[in-house]
């Protein structure tokens, strides 16, 4: 059946079967390979996308349910190729190793910073608790998110 939604501000239409997952439609039909697929059961968060601003595991959402939604992938945070502040901080702080968890991490962090301008470390860790990283041990990721929050408030990112 025809499903139509916005991805990164652009209207897309796909033909999806009832059991097709959003992650597969984004990756394979739309070629958006920045959306990663890992556990396929909603635990690791690698496939995190924003649906109407809220982080969702795309492997656990049927594509047919995305009809009419506004979807954001990490590509949508960096239009024109300019790094989003979160991306810049992650790179700066050595918070990216293999990079596989990174798109999902960025979207979960972005959603947090959109609603909390001054999150505590506990709130950052809570917001990222559905995004697993096998490489970094999370510390630099958390620091990058806190630094981005400070930067957005006009304070010293230190």
């Amino acid at each position, binding site marked *: 059946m025809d499903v139509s939604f916005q991805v990164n501000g652009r209207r897309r239409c796909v033909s999806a079967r009832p*059991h097709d997952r959003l992650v597969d*439609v984004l990756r394979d*039909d739309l070629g958006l390979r920045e959306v990663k697929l890992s556990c396929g059961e909603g635990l690791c968060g690698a496939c995190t996308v924003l649906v109407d601003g809220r982080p969702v595991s795309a492997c656990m959402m049927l594509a047919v349910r995305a009809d009419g939604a506004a979807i954001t992938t990490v590509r949508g945070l960096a239009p024109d190729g300019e790094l989003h502040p979160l991306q810049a901080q992650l790179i700066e702080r050595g918070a990216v190793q293999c990079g596989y968890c990174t798109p999902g991490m960025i979207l979960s962090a972005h959603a947090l910073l959109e609603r909390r301008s001054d999150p505590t470390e506990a709130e950052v860790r809570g917001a990222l608790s559905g995004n697993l990283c096998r490489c970094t041990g999370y510390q630099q990721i958390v620091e990058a998110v806190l630094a981005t929050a400070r930067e957005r408030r006009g304070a010293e990112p230190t």
Partner: protein
Amino acid sequence: MSASTPPPPGQAEACRTGLPSAAAINSRHPFRPSRYHRPAAVAEAVELLDRHGPEARVIAGGTDLLLEAAPGVAVLVDANGLGLEGVRAGDGAVEIGATTRFAEIAASPLLQAAPYRALAQAAAAMGTPQIRNQATIGGNVCSAVPCGDSLPALLVLDAQLTVTGPSGERSVAVADFFRGARTNALGRGELLTGIRLPAHPGGTASAFVKKGRVAVGDLAVVNVASRLGLDGEGRCVDPRVAVGAVAATPLRLRGSEAALDGQPLRDEVLRRAAERAVDGIRPIDDIRASADYRRALVRVLVPGTVGDAAAAAGREQASSVPRPARGGP
């Protein structure tokens, strides 16, 4: 190196390495409904469910449905367009629409209030932030999984479930809704539309705790909810304790409740409640934990949640004591 068997028409092609694409792998998955409906009214949803019977399943968040991956599901009936979302206060009670997301329940000021807090805590403990943005309380209840996080909280809060079907609307006590593991009391064509939490007297408080193998994202090894009030002398009034993941359905712990009822919450009372907590539970050894560990957890978590609820009930009492008027003697 030749490509693998060409994909069926209309399907995504294999990626550059010749390996099948994710969609091609996914097509071998047993969960393959062929029809999807998005009714605009409850009556339409009921008609679809009645017509298709066991071949049809309601999809709300879909997070349990996709994991269950039942092969016999032919028809999906999407419940998200039926206006069943939201948490509302009404004549002292709280009404929760069946397709309300766990994220909304966790953040609801109404449900964070002391009497209902066990449910807000349960919602915050369920899944991951991403899953909580999709999964619904109605889906959790109807899945009737033994470890469902909302279930012990709903039991101690005496929730009433509103079920709508071909013969109209009926109300089912949550305690009567779970017939066995993954077996609920819905009849053919019936749909859970709402959950009603009755009013609780002032000074009542509830608490919930979940233990999994990891802090976030795991199914519960054990989950426990308690609810109680305190009288003027600090004695326990109308205690409720419920536990999940230790039997085919969530259970009320009547033995613990009897040990607490009318008693001041001193250490020996809590100890008795802990000892009685394992009466009637039937934990199993599974991939997450042994039966023995589950029994040990229950003995600790029951007095723990009772203590939390009592502390909150004490604060409720203290804050409701009338203050003397300004300028008084």
